[in-house]
């Protein structure tokens, strides 16, 4: 093993000359990576025909001839190769070849370049419709839209995992239900899924089993089993499985739940790799604000009294009742102290996620069908779920909604520059719909049912900070708020329009559409009183050449939706998209960057990544998230959130000196601003140099 030249060159970016990083080294690293590695390790074909036939015959690709003639495929290849795509940074190229490009069975030789992957995805999603395949291909090679990793990675491959990666389900409070969850976790994890469970229905430690008090083990042992399940069922050893569990803050195991992430704690109760999230109903925030006594409830005693699970109750309505009912066992705590404990745990581990249940359900379009009870591994999926009743062998299970979601992200910079917001949203919605159509997770019936009936997708966006910087707009500025307000309103509009068109074409809506807020028009209220348009001239100029939907357009859309319905129960969700943003040479999601050159540590590599478009002129606009007032970030997210039916992965960036109180104040602010969730909290350490120079 010798030092790899391209990695060394990439590392040399960090060498400073005259106070400037050696950014040109990154281009040299890309060049070296291709010349010294990729090209030498790519299988060569004399003709395109030879390549396609080889890939199909050797069972790398599915048989595309079932849908296309060679000439039709050639058209798509020509379209894509004519664009002369080049990777803009080492990180982009490295990430693509490292994680996405098809390799031969020995794992040593590449069979695909970026262009080939784009074509394979397009042909696969096109399913024989040549113009449609070309639309996908154009959108992808323009880097206007990026499907989530499983779709981009697996499309068109004969031997591959699923196209969807995100699953959620409830855990019932009995052995059959717990067994079903563990079984689902194992199966979904083995096909590449991240799985999130709501464990709030499980009875607490010390509750009764078969009316014998003190027998239940609580949620921790289940978490321990799930953690081991995920680490066992990895994806053929390629990457570890990932899972999350959410617990309602009113569940009596909540303190134990938070302590599992402590740095120094007994192995039996320590959770290392399972992610955790806390479900926070409005009532809890209210009790903290008023500094009133806060009671946690033993969930099984609640169920025995009301025949309903604790986390299904509306706590605003039921809290007093539960407090006064002597048969409901409870534990008194201080809500403010619990918030601080959450903040303390976040400082030490980055977890837990917070899910603000009230905010998530306030504008929920399917509120008549059910509640949103928890979220997923990245806290952007927010859909209705209901626990299934799993029976013993020979008796029929009652299967209800789990959650399955497939994701993709628009690249804000390219769709804005190409003036193709409408086209990109519509094409992206179609590609997501195809993924939902062909996904059939039969092994987990609750997830299968949800996908079959609700067709949920999650279209998101990336490169916000990159786009703003390129246009010399500060992330924390009023202009940025203005831009996001208009841009995401448009995304919302066109995604509804596209969903309506698909429903019209197929004469099919999601199950339950008639009871939804879309059908009765309530959902559209926020768009009907006043036009949303840029207030700032600079922002208006960015939208020049694109039509911005007006009140009249919204009214017309509302009426069309009433007639034709919507195909998707859920449409938008903004994922954190890490790997995929590198390939796109974009900043991740709608979050601010953490540094002008980010150091990325993945399980398998350390790479230096200069932010997109970085040069001496725009350097200043890449202000680090750690140096921003987090309230400014949360405010921006609140503006986007108004136009997004599901959630937004929102990361808090804090510094070592921030106290637990500072962090807890962000929770309060986020909650009041209507955010639906907070993803993990990152901490920047005070560096040692800084400490010494401050005081010696």
């Amino acid at each position, binding site marked *: 093993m010798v030092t790899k030249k391209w990695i060394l060159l990439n590392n040399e970016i*960090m060498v400073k000359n005259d106070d400037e990083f050696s950014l040109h080294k990154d281009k040299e690293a890309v060049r070296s990576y291709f010349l010294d590695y990729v090209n030498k390790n790519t299988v060569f074909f004399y003709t395109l025909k030879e390549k396609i036939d080889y890939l199909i015959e050797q069972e790398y690709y599915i048989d595309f001839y079932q849908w296309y003639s060679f000439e039709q495929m050639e058209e798509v290849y020509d379209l894509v190769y004519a664009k002369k795509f080049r990777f803009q940074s080492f990180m982009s190229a490295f990430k693509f070849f490292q994680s996405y490009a098809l390799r031969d069975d020995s794992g040593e030789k590449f069979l695909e370049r970026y262009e080939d992957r784009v074509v394979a995805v397009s042909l696969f999603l096109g399913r024989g419709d040549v113009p449609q395949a070309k639309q996908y291909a154009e959108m992808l090679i323009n880097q206007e839209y990026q499907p989530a990793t499983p779709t981009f990675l697996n499309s068109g491959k004969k031997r591959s995992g699923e196209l969807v990666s995100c699953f959620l389900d409830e855990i019932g409070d009995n052995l059959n239900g717990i067994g079903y969850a563990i079984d689902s976790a194992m199966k979904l994890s083995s096909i590449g899924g991240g799985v999130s469970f709501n464990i709030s229905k499980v009875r607490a430690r010390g509750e009764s089993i078969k009316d014998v008090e003190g027998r239940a083990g609580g949620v921790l042992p289940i978490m321990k089993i799930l953690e081991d399940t995920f680490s066992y069922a990895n994806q053929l*050893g390629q990457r570890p499985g990932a899972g999350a569990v959410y617990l309602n803050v009113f569940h009596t195991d909540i303190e134990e739940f938070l302590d599992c992430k402590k740095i120094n704690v007994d192995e039996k109760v320590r959770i290392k790799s399972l992610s955790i999230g806390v479900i926070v109903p409005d009532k809890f925030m209210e009790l903290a604000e008023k500094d009133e006594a806060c009671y946690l409830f033993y969930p099984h005693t609640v169920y025995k009294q009301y025949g309903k699970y604790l986390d299904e109750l509306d706590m605003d309505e039921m809290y007093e009742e539960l407090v006064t009912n002597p048969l409901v066992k409870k534990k008194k705590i201080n809500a403010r102290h619990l918030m601080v404990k959450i903040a303390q745990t976040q400082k030490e*581990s980055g977890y837990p996620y917070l899910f603000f249940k009230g905010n998530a359900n306030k504008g929920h379009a399917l509120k008549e069908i059910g509640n949103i009870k928890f979220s997923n591994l990245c806290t952007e999926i927010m859909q209705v779920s209901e626990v299934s009743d799993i029976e013993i062998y020979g008796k029929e299970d009652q299967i209800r909604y789990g959650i399955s979601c497939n994701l993709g992200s628009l690249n804000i910079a390219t769709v804005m520059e190409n003036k193709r917001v409408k086209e990109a949203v519509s094409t992206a919605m179609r590609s997501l719909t195809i993924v939902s159509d062909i996904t059939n997770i039969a092994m987990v019936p609750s997830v299968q049912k949800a996908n079959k009936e609700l067709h949920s997708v999650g279209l998101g966006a990336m490169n916000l900070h990159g786009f703003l910087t390129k246009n010399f707009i500060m992330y924390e500025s009023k202009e940025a708020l203005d831009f996001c307000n208009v841009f995401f309103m448009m995304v919302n509009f066109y995604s509804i329009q596209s969903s309506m068109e698909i429903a019209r074409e197929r004469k099919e809506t999601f199950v339950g559409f008639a009871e939804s807020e879309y059908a009765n028009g309530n959902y559209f209220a926020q768009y009907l009183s006043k036009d949303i348009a840029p207030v700032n001239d600079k922002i208006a100029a960015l939208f020049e050449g694109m039509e911005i939907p007006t009140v009249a357009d919204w009214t017309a859309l509302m009426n069309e939706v009433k007639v034709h319905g919507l195909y998707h129960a859920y449409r938008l969700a903004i994922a954190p998209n890490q790997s995929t943003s590198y390939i796109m040479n974009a900043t991740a999601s709608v979050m601010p960057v*953490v540094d002008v050159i980010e150091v990325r540590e993945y399980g398998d590599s350390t790479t230096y990544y200069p932010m997109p478009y970085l040069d001496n002129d725009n350097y200043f606009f890449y202000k680090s998230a750690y140096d921003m007032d987090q309230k400014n970030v949360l405010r921006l997210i609140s503006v986007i959130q108004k136009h997004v039916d599901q959630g937004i992965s929102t990361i808090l960036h804090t510094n070592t000196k921030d106290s*637990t109180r500072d962090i807890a*104040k962000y929770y309060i602010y986020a909650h009041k601003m209507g955010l639906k969730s907070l993803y993990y909290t990152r901490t920047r350490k005070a560096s040692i140099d800084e400490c010494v120079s401050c005081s010696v």
Partner: protein
Amino acid sequence: MNQYKAVNWNTPENDYAGMFWEQNLRQFWVDTEYIPSKDIDSWKSLTPEIQQAYKRALGGLTLLDTLQSHTGMPKLLDHIDGLQNKAVLSFMCMMEAIHAKSYSTIFTTVNSTAEINELFEWVESNKLLQFKAATIDKYYRNLDANKVSNETLFMGLAASVLLESFLFYSGFFMPLWLAGQGQMVASADIIKKIVADESIHGVFVGLLAQDVYKKLPNPEKCKEELVKLLMELYENELKYTDELYTEVGLTADVKEYVRYNANKAMMNLGFEELFEVKAVNSIVLNGLNVDTTQHDFFSKKSTNYEKSMEVVYLRDEDFQVEAEPVF
């Protein structure tokens, strides 16, 4: 009769003990937080030569940390003025013991018992490695007496800084170099925590040494002895590097790195650099930078989180935030 004093943290003894105490506490970690078992596949993919170098590098580090926790820190803290300084040293002493254990956490995860036993035998029989330990230990043993001269104390402190800031790094090179290229990454999380600790240990003990140095009647003589000691260790370090790294072809890079760190040790002691250093391998240098990095939560554990120190409770006014609509 002796008058016994209790440590009073309410009155600062100097302008840095409190700060180092806090920083140490913040950086606190235990080896079992990390998951080196993720590296098993990576380990199997390495050539036998690299595996050998890796194991031996860690074996050597274990010896140095053992010496530091069992002898170095206890001896030093016995003679250092100031109860707060002593407290900081005793915390560091405990961390050294955790370091020594944590290398084992790595190789006990990837190696068989037979291989582990063989490795420890190698540590005990390798002359160059034993020379390092013996040379440093000699200066620690000079502190055995009840009262020692400032010269002896300075040399004890200086030996400690040489160990922490200089001798460790021929060993750290291997895991950092591999991790930069995507191998043994989970184990490198542990190594990075150790590097972060050693770096504050070196700075702190260096400051103590500088305080003592100022009191010396004939400082030049001590400095001469220090340089002589450093050169002696340096010669040995070059041979040790040859032995460890020749088969994997990294000798030249490691030697440059050794010189780079010898300079750092001198700087921690308040002296000018000794060696001219050209380009140090950027991968390793970047791996050393213990600033916050970005990471993917699902694929690895971060080294960024620290014990939270500032637990402050909420007040009524914290809830009075304005959340008026933006548009």
